[in-house]
C-alpha cells in the first residue's frame, strides 16, 4: 500500500508543480515549461512500450504529431473540441494498432527501424498533404478550449498519466510486459500472449502521445512538420533512457534534461544536441538504468556503507 501511496502522491504533486510552472513562467521559460509538461505526458506513454516492454518504438513522434494535426483539422471542420480530441486520440490509437500489427512480428532493432520508417513517412504526409496540414511551414490551430482550461488539462494529464502508468506497471499487464523485456521466448513459453500484449502496449502508448499532441496544439497555437520528425522520436527515446526507462518518474526527469538542454541553455546550434549525445552514451555505459536507476543504486551503496560503518 505504501508503494501505491508514494506513486500516486508524487503523481498528484507533479500535477500541482506542472500547474504552477505553466501559470507562473512567462515567455521563453513558459515555452520550456509547456514542452516539459507535454513531453512528460507523451513519454509516459512511451514508458509503457519501451520502458516496461523493452520495445524501442520510434513511432512516438508520429503519434504525437498525428494527434496534434488531426485534432486541428477536425476542429477546423467544426467539431467541438472534446469530440475532436476524443476522435483524434481514438484514430491515432487505431493507427498504433495497425503499426503494431505489422511490426510486432519483428524484434528489437528491426522494430526500431520499422517504426522509425513509419515516423519518416508520417513526416512526409505532414509536409506534403498541404491541403490539410499547411505544408512544410505548418498550420495554425484554432482555440478549442480556453487557454486556462488547456493549462488545467495539461497539469491534470501529467498526474493522471503517471497514475495510469503506475497502475499498469503493477498490474498483470505490466508483469507480462516486463517478462517480454527480460526474455520474450521464455515469456511466451510461460503462457504470455506476447503478440497481443505488445499490440496493446503500442496502442496505449499511441494514445498518450496523441493526447499530448492535442494539448500541445491547443497551447502552442501553431504546429509544423519539423516538430514531429524522426529525430524527435530519437530524442524521446534518448529522454526516456536518460531518465531510466520503466521507472515511474523517468518521463519527468528525461523531459527536464532533454528539453532543458536543448531549449534553456543557449549553447548555439547543434551544441546542445552534441552534449545530449555524449550524455546519452555516458549514461548508457555508466548507468544502464538511467539517471533514476543510477541514483537508486548509489543510495543503496551509500546505505550499505553506513550499515557497515
Amino acid at each position, binding site marked *: 500500500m505504501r508503494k501505491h501511496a508514494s506513486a500516486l502522491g508524487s503523481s498528484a504533486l507533479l500535477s500541482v508543480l506542472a500547474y504552477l510552472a505553466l501559470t507562473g513562467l512567462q515567455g521563453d521559460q513558459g515555452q520550456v515549461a509547456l514542452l516539459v509538461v507535454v513531453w512528460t505526458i507523451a513519454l509516459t506513454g512511451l514508458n509503457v512500450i519501451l520502458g516496461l516492454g523493452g520495445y524501442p518504438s520510434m513511432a512516438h513522434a508520429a503519434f504525437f504529431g498525428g494527434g496534434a494535426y488531426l485534432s486541428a483539422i477536425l476542429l477546423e471542420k467544426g467539431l467541438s473540441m472534446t469530440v475532436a480530441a476524443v476522435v483524434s486520440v481514438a484514430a491515432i490509437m487505431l493507427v498504433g494498432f495497425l503499426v503494431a500489427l505489422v511490426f510486432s512480428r519483428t524484434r528489437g532493432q*528491426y522494430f526500431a*527501424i520499422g517504426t*522509425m520508417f513509419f515516423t519518416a513517412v508520417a513526416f*512526409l504526409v505532414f509536409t506534403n498533404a498541404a491541403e490539410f496540414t499547411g505544408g512544410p511551414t505548418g498550420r495554425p490551430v484554432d482555440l478549442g478550449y480556453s487557454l486556462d482550461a488547456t493549462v488545467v488539462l495539461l497539469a491534470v494529464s501529467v498526474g493522471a498519466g503517471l497514475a495510469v502508468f503506475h497502475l499498469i506497471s503493477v498490474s498483470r499487464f505490466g508483469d507480462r510486459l516486463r517478462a517480454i523485456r527480460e526474455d520474450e521466448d521464455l515469456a511466451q513459453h510461460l503462457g504470455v500472449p506476447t503478440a497481443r500484449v505488445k499490440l496493446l502496449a503500442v496502442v496505449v502508448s499511441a494514445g498518450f502521445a496523441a493526447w499530448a499532441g492535442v494539448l500541445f496544439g491547443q497551447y502552442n497555437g501553431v504546429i509544423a512538420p519539423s516538430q514531429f520528425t524522426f529525430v524527435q522520436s530519437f530524442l524521446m527515446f534518448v529522454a526516456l533512457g536518460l531518465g531510466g526507462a520503466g521507472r515511474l518518474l523517468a518521463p519527468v526527469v528525461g523531459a527536464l534534461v532533454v528539453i532543458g538542454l536543448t531549449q534553456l541553455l543557449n549553447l548555439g*546550434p547543434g551544441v546542445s544536441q552534441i552534449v545530449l*549525445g*555524449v550524455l546519452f*552514451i555516458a549514461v548508457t555505459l555508466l548507468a544502464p538504468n538511467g539517471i533514476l536507476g543510477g541514483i537508486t543504486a548509489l543510495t543503496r551503496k551509500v546505505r550499505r556503507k553506513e550499515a557497515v560503518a
Partner: protein
Amino acid sequence: MIQVLVNGVFLGCLFAVVAVGLTLVYGVMEVPNFAHAGVIVLAAYATWSASAAGLPFALAALVGIACGAAVSVLTEVVAYRWIIDNPAAAPAVALGLMLILQNTALRLFGGEGRSMDTPYDQVLVEFGGVSLSGVKVALVVLAVLALTALHLILSRTSLGRAMRAVAQDRGAAAMLGIPMRRQYTLAFLIAGLLAGIAAVAYAPTFQVSPYMADEVLLSAFVVVVVGGLGSVWGAVAGGLVLGVVEGLGSAYLSSAYQSAFGFLLLVLILVLKPGGLRGATGRRVA
C-alpha cells in the same frame, strides 16, 4: 519506362553501398549503426571543404573517403568497443553517436545546403535512348567497383574469410583464434570507406547538408531488413529492389512520397512473408 528503371538502379546502387556498410557492422557486432548517416555527412563535408580549398576533385574525393573511414573507425574505438558484451545498449549508443556526428557537421558548416561541383556534373551520357547525368553514371560505376572489390576481399583473402566467420558465429570464431578486436575495427573501416564513397558519389546530385543522409539511411536500413541483417549479397539485391520500387513509385505516383514506397514494400513483406526475412523475427528458440 527504361529511364525510370535506370533511375531506380541508380538509387538501388546508392542504397546498396550504404546498406552493405550497415550490414557488415551488424554482422560482426550486432549494432544498428545509425551513426552511419553522420559518417556520410562528415565525409561529404570533407570532400566539399577540400574541393573548396582548391584541391582537384579526385583528390578531394579521396580526402572525403579517408575522412569517412577515419570517423567510422573512431566511433568503434571510442564507443562501440565498450558495448560488445551488451548488445541491448547498442541502439542507444548508435543514436547518441548520430546526434554527435550530425550536429558536429551542423556546428562546423551551418545548416544550409552546399552544392558540390564535380568535373563530370555537366556530362550527359546517352545510351540507347536513355540519358543519364554524369553524376549518376559515376555513382553506378563507383558502386559496382566498390562492391566487387569488397566481394573479392571477403571471398579471396584470409582477412575476409575471418570476417565472414565472425559474422556467422562470434563464439566459434573467437575459439578458432580469430582476433576479434581487429575484425570489429576492420568492419568499421570498410563501412566507413563505403560511406565515404557513397557520400562522394551522391552528394553532387543532392546537396551537402547535415541532414543529407537521413532518408538514405532509412532506406538503407529497410534494405538491410529486407535482405537480412548481416548478409552482403542480400543488401545488394535488396538495394536494387528497393531502388527500383522507389524509382517507379516516385515517377508514376508521387515524387514527394518517394521513400514512402519503400515503407510500403517493407510492410508488404512483413505482412505477407514474416518468416521469409532471414532473421527478421530475431533469434528463435532452437
